[in-house]
């Protein structure tokens, strides 16, 4: 579709000469209610519109339909001509509205019948229209600017619609010659100017208006090429409703419109939001409403040659055909995503009629109506939908044929389809945080980024560390980490944000001190997963990973990382030493180990070994936090529970040399303990006494449940 086709610019030239003040002789009865009123009242004489009034109101109707369907890019320049020309608006988009034009027309007023007819002519207006067509519109300017050296691709075409009362066919020819001459003159002028463009193509539509009952002095003539630049057509029309239907046909031709009649509209009293006072008894009847819209909304019918349902010609537009679509009882389906192949703005043909305004009000209230295509076979095919978006009603074209995408492989059959623990809820939350909103008043930020670039940048920040499955992460399964995780992704952190992050870290330290359990995933490892201290190490490592990805964002982000490093239990060199120690141990134990039972040594009957185990345990105790392994290879849970070793430890401490009984008991206890998970209370107990309801003591009100949102 060409942006700068003939319909980009329309110049309306309306004759304001004295003869236009003549009556159209179409009489309108204003005094309607006399019958029901008291007798003896003499009805007032009917009024009749002047030719000028007819011309103006029909042109306004043309514009109403045009602006309803094309709120932008289709521009009108309204010119009135008498002893001189009056340009009532400009090509600028903000000048394209009916209200402004009505005001300007009121200022012009009706033609003055006493003005000297010799000085008055439509020619003034036609010349002004040609000059105006040479003026560049903001869209042409913008396009030329972006195309730079290809600016000549931007065409300048236009249409002049002239509403006048011509004297004769010769007069019409004179007007055409004059327009052609002016175009040639203006094009020469425009060639040398930056703000003007030569007219490449101009369509002149002369509408000769004459009063009812008169014979026309001008004959109709279909479109004819007068020169390569100018084509012209003449319509000779009686004022009044003939003129109105003529302009209705023209607006459809000029802007590729088509008509759809919505039939079977139920107008129940509940629908009757408008004009309730006019409500009559028979409101339950079904009504028809005719709408205009771009003709592509009928594409399916046109292409398939399936326009047979368009049998009835439109009552209002007379000549044009209309496609009938049947109202389907509306379903509330705003959350349903229809497969829609086009959406076209509509304009009701008879905007103020009661059926029209009831339909439009119904839609403006946010409801949608599905429309059914009547078929000879009687099968029901939903082909369109009427729906309102932001105060504009659109006719949506729905796909009603077989889909080429039917029966696709399910997503669960493809890559990643077998994975079951995706963080669906978390990503849903992520999507909510990354929803979009319009920033019409803030095109670019300080860094020169458009809003959508900021949106992408935010997505980038939020996904620097984002494990996709639950078993890949610890920190995102912990409620306690949420405040930090939410703040660290921010572009800039406030002092308060930093404090919150630090608090989060302290809180984690506190949890660790209290030995709160962590929601470490056990997927992929046998048994119950790593030990508690190991769990914390994994958690700290993951938290560091997260924060490290944001460390470059700002000073405060850096401080969060520093806080974590400082709060993590062991100094780095100690960790290093420990690592070396572990290597030695590993060598030592190699003979015993067979891959999965790496920690079995603790309960070997050999007292030597037991001692070694106890010593190691002691060592671990003294260093409080021990790195056993990298987080990538979590140890299996098949190792001695903490309780057992502590018991042994205390035994050893209090009694010096170990008795055979205690050795035996400890061995049995350990063996048994492997078969069940230790009661949480005993694990956390002091001297075998567990304190109940610990959380009540917590002064800061922190709930123990915060330790892990995934309780299981």
């Amino acid at each position, binding site marked *: 579709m060409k942006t700068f086709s003939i319909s980009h610019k329309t110049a309306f030239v309306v004759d304001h000469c004295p003869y236009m003040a003549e009556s159209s002789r179409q009489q309108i009865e*204003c005094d309607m209610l006399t019958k029901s009123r008291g007798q003896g009242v003499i009805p007032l004489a009917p009024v009749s519109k*002047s030719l000028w009034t007819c011309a103006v109101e029909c042109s306004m109707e043309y514009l109403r339909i045009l602006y*309803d369907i094309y709120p932008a890019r289709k521009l009108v320049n309204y010119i009135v001509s008498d002893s001189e020309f009056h340009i009532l608006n400009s090509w600028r988009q903000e000048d394209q509205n009916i209200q402004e034009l009505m*005001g300007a027309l009121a200022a012009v007023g009706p033609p003055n019948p006493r003005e000297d007819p010799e000085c008055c002519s439509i020619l003034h207006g036609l010349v002004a229209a040609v000059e105006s067509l040479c003026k560049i519109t903001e869209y042409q300017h913008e396009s030329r600017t972006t195309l730079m050296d290809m600016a000549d691709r931007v065409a300048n075409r236009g249409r002049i619609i002239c509403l006048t009362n011509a004297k004769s066919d010769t007069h019409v020819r004179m007007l055409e010659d004059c327009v052609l001459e002016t175009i040639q003159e203006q094009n020469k002028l425009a060639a040398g100017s930056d703000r003007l463009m030569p007219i490449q193509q101009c369509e002149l539509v002369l509408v000769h208006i004459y009063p009812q009952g008169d014979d026309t002095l001008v004959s109709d003539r279909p479109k004819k090429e007068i020169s390569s630049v100018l084509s012209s057509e003449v319509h000779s029309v009686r004022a009044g409703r003939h003129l109105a239907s003529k302009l209705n046909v023209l607006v459809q031709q000029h802007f590729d419109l088509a008509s759809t009649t919505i039939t079977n509209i139920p107008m129940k009293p509940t629908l009757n939001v408008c004009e309730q006072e006019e409500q009559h008894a028979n409101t339950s009847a079904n009504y028809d409403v005719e709408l205009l819209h771009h003709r592509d909304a009928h594409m399916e019918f046109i292409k398939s040659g399936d326009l047979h349902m368009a049998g009835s010609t439109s009552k209002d537009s007379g000549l044009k055909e209309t496609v009938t679509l049947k109202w389907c009882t509306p379903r509330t389906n705003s959350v349903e995503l229809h497969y829609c192949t086009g959406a076209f703005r509509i304009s009701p043909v008879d905007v103020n009629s009661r059926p029209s305004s009831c339909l439009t009000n119904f839609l403006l209230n946010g409801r949608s109506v599905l429309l059914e295509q009547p078929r000879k076979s009687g099968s029901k095919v939903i082909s369109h939908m009427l729906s309102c978006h932001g105060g504009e009603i659109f006719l949506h074209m729905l796909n009603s044929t077989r889909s080429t995408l039917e029966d696709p492989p399910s997503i669960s059959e493809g890559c990643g389809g077998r994975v079951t623990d995706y963080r669906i809820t978390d990503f849903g939350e992520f999507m909510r945080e990354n*929803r979009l909103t319009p920033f019409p008043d803030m095109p670019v930020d300080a860094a020169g980024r458009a*809003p959508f670039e900021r949106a992408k940048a935010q*997505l980038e920040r939020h996904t620097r560390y984002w494990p996709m499955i639950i078993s890949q992460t610890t920190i995102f399964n912990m409620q306690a980490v949420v405040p930090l995780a939410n703040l660290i992704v921010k572009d800039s952190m406030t002092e308060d944000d930093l404090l919150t992050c630090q608090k989060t870290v302290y809180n984690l330290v506190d949890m660790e001190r209290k030995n709160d359990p962590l929601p470490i995933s056990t997927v992929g490892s046998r048994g119950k997963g790593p030990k508690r201290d190991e769990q914390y190490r994994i958690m700290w490592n993951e938290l560091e990973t997260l924060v490290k990805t944001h460390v470059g964002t700002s000073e405060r982000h850096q401080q969060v990382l520093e806080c974590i490093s400082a709060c993590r239990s062991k100094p780095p060199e100690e960790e290093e030493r420990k690592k070396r120690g572990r290597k030695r141990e590993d060598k030592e134990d190699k003979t015993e180990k067979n891959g999965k039972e790496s920690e079995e040594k603790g309960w070997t009957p050999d007292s030597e070994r037991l001692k070694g185990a106890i010593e190691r345990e002691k060592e671990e105790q003294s260093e409080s936090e021990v790195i056993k392994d990298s987080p990538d290879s979590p140890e299996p849970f098949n190792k001695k529970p903490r309780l057992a070793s502590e018991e042994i430890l205390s035994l050893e401490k209090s009694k010096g040399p170990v008795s055979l009984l205690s050795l035996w008991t400890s061995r049995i206890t350990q063996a048994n303990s492997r078969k069940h998970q230790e009661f949480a209370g005993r694990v956390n107990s002091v001297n075998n006494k567990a304190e109940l309801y610990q959380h009540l003591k917590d002064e800061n009100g922190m709930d123990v449940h915060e330790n892990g949102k995934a309780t299981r």
Partner: protein
Amino acid sequence: MPTVVLMDASLSMTRPVSLEGSEEFQRKNLAVHGLTMLFEHMATNYRLEFTALVVFSSLWELMVPFTRDYNTLQEALNNLEDYDKTCLESALQGVSNIVQQEWGSTCPCQVVLVTDGALGIGRGSLRHSLATLKQRGDDKKFPLPFPFPSKLYIMCISNAEELQATDAMDNLEQLLTLSGGEGQIFTMDGPLCLKSVQAMFGKLIDQAYTPFHAVLRCGNLASDVQVFPRPEPVLLDEEVDPVPKAVLTELEIVGFIEIGDIASPPVLSRHLVLPIAVNKEADEVGAGTADDMEEDTSTNQMAGKSPNFCVLLHGSLKVEGMVALVQLGPDWYGMLYSQADSKKKSNLMMSLFEPGPEPLPWLGKISQLGPISDALENPYGEDDSKSPFPVQPKSKRSYAQNVTVWIKASGLQTDVQKILRNARKLPEKTQTFYKELNRLRKAALAFGFWELLKCVAELLERECTLLPDSAHPDAAFQLSHAAQQLRLASTGDSQYAAFEHNITPMLTDFSGGGGGADRM
């Protein structure tokens, strides 16, 4: 984009191909060989494509209706019989009917015509059809261009020299032009043999049946995907912007929007977004391409078990009832969403919007959509009770702003009666009375319809005389005041006929006290 294979089964296709080798081939055998290669390719790399097989001579027959079962197609191909002369026009008409019956007239379709370039003689030959193009009535139109968007690929089992020796090439070129120019004529290079037919169909596969692979990105999360059917380049305005726009192979998510807010938008086309495993060890395995690896079941199982962003995205879009806005190129966008078919199966789907900075008026310019965190307060409200969409247009449409239209007498009569109705309920309806009066006044002034102002003034004066004794005294004052104002306006005197001027209720002793009665 469904495919129709239109296979020439005329007698000329049985012409032997002169070969130095032992076995003797007919042109038909070469054609079958080429199509077998095409079907095999589709079965492995393009298996969601629907294909139909039509054979034609002087008659045409739908051998295999649209299917994804390439074995059936292959089987039918292997059992082709030989018929009489070539008559392309009726066959094309047949294709047109078959496609429209199955897919309607908006679904783009590819037609692969396989012929030896002997296009028939006499009536029904392509030469005859083209010669009589302009002498046809509406009922006997040439089937091209098809009513649906189409691409026509003509596979000639013959080489270019042979076709140029007759007018066959000219005729085929004319046919392609008639079809709308989308498509291509393929001929065989060198001697007619299996190798050259393979080369020719290889070119067709490269041109029309290579899968579209892309990377779907959301920040640092990404997945390799196949987009099916492959998105075709789109031409916007052939005058200002004559270069077709193509979808980039990097699909970048911009953000997310609720389904209710995006509100069934119009789309150019819909595509499945299928996650694929791009084989990173391709070098180790050898020459295996990613496509070959898709066949490997063990690889598939592996891929099934490793987390994929598409699955995560799909799951969350489905649960939350949202769509992801995705950038397809400069000033070109689309949306990703979960699409469920009737049988519980659901899929990640991508719809392409019309290229341009503002594809949906109710979203505004896409480039002006930013993260909600940038807004002073959450535009969705703390409890998701609001939405920043739809974006309201600057001006209201006529049906939403109470315009005045008097084209029909009834429109004018209704407006006059509204005033009279309110006039009889003065002073209770003072506000409505003046509102309607001013609406009429404005329109009458704009249309230069001063006679109407006088007429309504008269009507009001008469109402005044007809007031019952029980009427409120204020009513008479307001009626005569209004009538007088209308008369003044009808003189066109700039003092009274200003468009922006409004007639205000007369301040009377009664109305002053009864101000409360003006409530509406």
